[in-house]
């Protein structure tokens, strides 16, 4: 889970933990690379607009790297046009903020099948 907003990171962590998933949060996007190396996740949920790092760039990096291209990516954003924008980058799903936690859970389930 990548978001520069700590509260949101924690929220999503809590939601997914309650569903029985293993979640690791990254509230500093710059450290993202390190965390990935350590423990390759099956799904990355990332915010689109973060200070310093753009979720799209992150997506491109992950998908562009042969080692990590298999990882599923879900983009999150409050931005209204974000759906279109993220489609172009190659994300696997999109979640608009604010969201229904049922929606989040369903999407995560689907992506991790």
């Amino acid at each position, binding site marked *: 889970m990548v978001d520069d*907003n700590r509260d*949101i990171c924690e929220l999503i962590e809590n939601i997914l933990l*309650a569903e029985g998933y293993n979640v690791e949060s990254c509230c500093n996007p710059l450290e993202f690379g390190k965390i990935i190396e350590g423990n390759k996740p099956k799904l990355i949920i990332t915010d689109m*607009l973060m200070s310093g790092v753009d979720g799209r760039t992150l997506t491109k990096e992950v998908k562009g790297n042969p080692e990590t291209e298999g990882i599923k990516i879900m983009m999150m954003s*409050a*931005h209204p046009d974000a759906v279109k924008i993220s489609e172009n980058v190659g994300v696997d799903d999109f979640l608009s*903020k*604010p*969201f*229904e936690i049922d929606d989040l859970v369903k999407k995560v389930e689907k992506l991790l099948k």
Partner: protein
Amino acid sequence: MQENFPLSISGLKGDVLENLLNHIPFGFSLMTGDYLVESVNDFWLQIVQKTREEVVGKNLFEVFPETKEQLSPIFENIKTTGKQFYAPEYSIKMIRNGILQDVFFNFVYHPIYDEDGNFQYFATVVIEITDLIGVKSKIKEAEERLRLATESTQTATWDLNLKTFEVVHSPYLAEIFGYDKDEKILHATMREHLVEEDRKNVVEKAFEKALKTGIYQYESRLIDKKGAEKWIATQGKVFFDESGNPYRMLGVMRDITEKKNNEILLQQSHHQLNTAMDATKLGRFDMDPETLEKFNFSPRFLEIFGYDVNTETIDSKIFEKHIHHKFIPIRLEALKKAKETGDLYYQTKIVLRDKTVKWIEIYGRLMPSPDGRKSYISGTIRDITEHKDFEKNISESEKKYRFLADSMPQIVWIGEPDGTLTYVNKETLDYSGKNYNDFIAENGWTEIVHPDEQEENIRLWMRSVKTKKPFFFEHRFRNKENEYRWFMSRAYPELDENGNVKKWVGTSTDIDDMKKQEKQKNDFIKMANHELKTPVTTIKGYVQLLKKMRGESDDKFLVNSLNTIEKQVNKLTALIGDLLDISRIESGKLPLNKKEFSLLELVTETIEDIKAAEQSHQINFELKHTSDIEVFADKERITQVLNNLLTNAIKYSPQSDKVNVEMYVDGESAVVSVQDFGIGMEHDELTKIFERFYRVSGDDEETYPGFGIGLFIVQDILERHDGKIWVESKKNVGSKFYFALPLYKD
């Protein structure tokens, strides 16, 4: 003429007979079977123009050899058949006064038998009727001439018996009345065809007059058998008997429909001409082309020269009296020309008696006189004072206009109907750093337009030029420091009476600062939207988590509180969304993601969602269509529309407990209506509610929550879908909102 001839004359005494025979007014002769003339009377001699000595005792055919061929077979026949020969209008060629003529007789040749039945004599009774024949043939000729005359002049004839009212008429009369030419019409029928008004006022009166004076004359309308209206002219003469009573009337009748119509048309065109003359305020006059004398001045003529039509008159010297001295030579020149060519034209100033000065224009044409009298010049005069002043004013006002345009800090330009620029003001040149010629030459203005806007600029400008509709466009112009600034350009066409463009007048206003501010505002709103949504996401997330984890709790208060918080969070989200939308609508950037979907499904789902959130009202849905209704639209936005209408319906009817939703198809559109039974609206509010920021208020200035931008957004969404939204409402009764979307077509 039938003669009753006594078959036996033997009963009469000889000399009595002789006497008788000599005094009867017809020729009588007795001839033997061998054609020897026994006895003739004087009359007979007169007819044949012979003397007694020449004839009596002689063979008839010796005296009249030329008659042998014709007469001998007749006599022989009489001898054999014993029947008399009656030949009326019998012609015999005879020599009279040395000339062989056709002489016409009424003959009776009668065989006379003696007591024993033997043939004794031929008795002949003759009367010459050459004159009568002549008269008869003259009558025939006259009749024929009359017939020809009446046929060629399309004149019908009639002969009316004034006692019995039987009428004999020519075939053409039947045709006038619309019947076949062989049909015979009764006098009463003819009367019936006359137009009622004319029959009473014209014809019957003329008839009465005719019986007294002998002359019958009238013009009247009739409706013929086929229903056509015609005009006829009738003339007749009454014949009186010896006692002075009218017994017969003879007359003619003509179809004068065309003539009458022409008369009416002529009158009308005269009237029109006069009206036209009045309307153009032309004065009229006539002029003798040789002596240059003027006469026949129309009232308008006097008016132009400042004379009172009712009390004053003018004479031929009118021009000399009033012409402005500077124009005397011009006038003389024009008059000279008029003498030569027959055309008169000049403009001049005249000075009226009260010293006012006017401009007039004179036109004159040589008219050939219709009846051979000498030709004259028909002239018109027009007061062109205003016109002349106007011309002067125009050039003055043009100067003022240029001055104004140059002192304005706006860019001002003028274009031709085809779109090329012919004028830019000083500010334009100062701003762009270009010179006038560069600008005007070959669409030089496009050069300073930012490349991103150039194409659209030219396209829209050409479209305006073609459609003659005003031009609006926001674009960037490069200034002399090579920086681009935003301008709002507007151009309006100046049209002439026929609707063609005389010229384009355009201005461009510097809106760069405004544009920058707007961008800042929009950027701010986008950011605010993002910033606001972040905490909202967190709140919502945790509330939902809590509900999940503690939702089954016995603590009712907890559960209800959580539900309340979630509802409010959703409302907050919606409000934030509206805020963002409105800024995007204004900058024209509201994106639509259209696809085909079932409107029915969307409506039912949305209603379900609302029902779950708001339990205060019962939402009834009725589908008035037999099948599914599909549209091609942005599903989320249409959901937004329906949500907005439903929440409004609930919001604005707090005292009611139901909302009705209907869906149907109207022509090419799908229509959904949402009806509430709440506070309703006044008639004048109905259009205002779609305005941005407008909010309806209830009694006691109670206000209802919301930014007042919902309907503004809804209208924009529908317009962008080529749909419509409208409302019916009555104060304190309720409102019914309708929206329509085009049906999806394969």
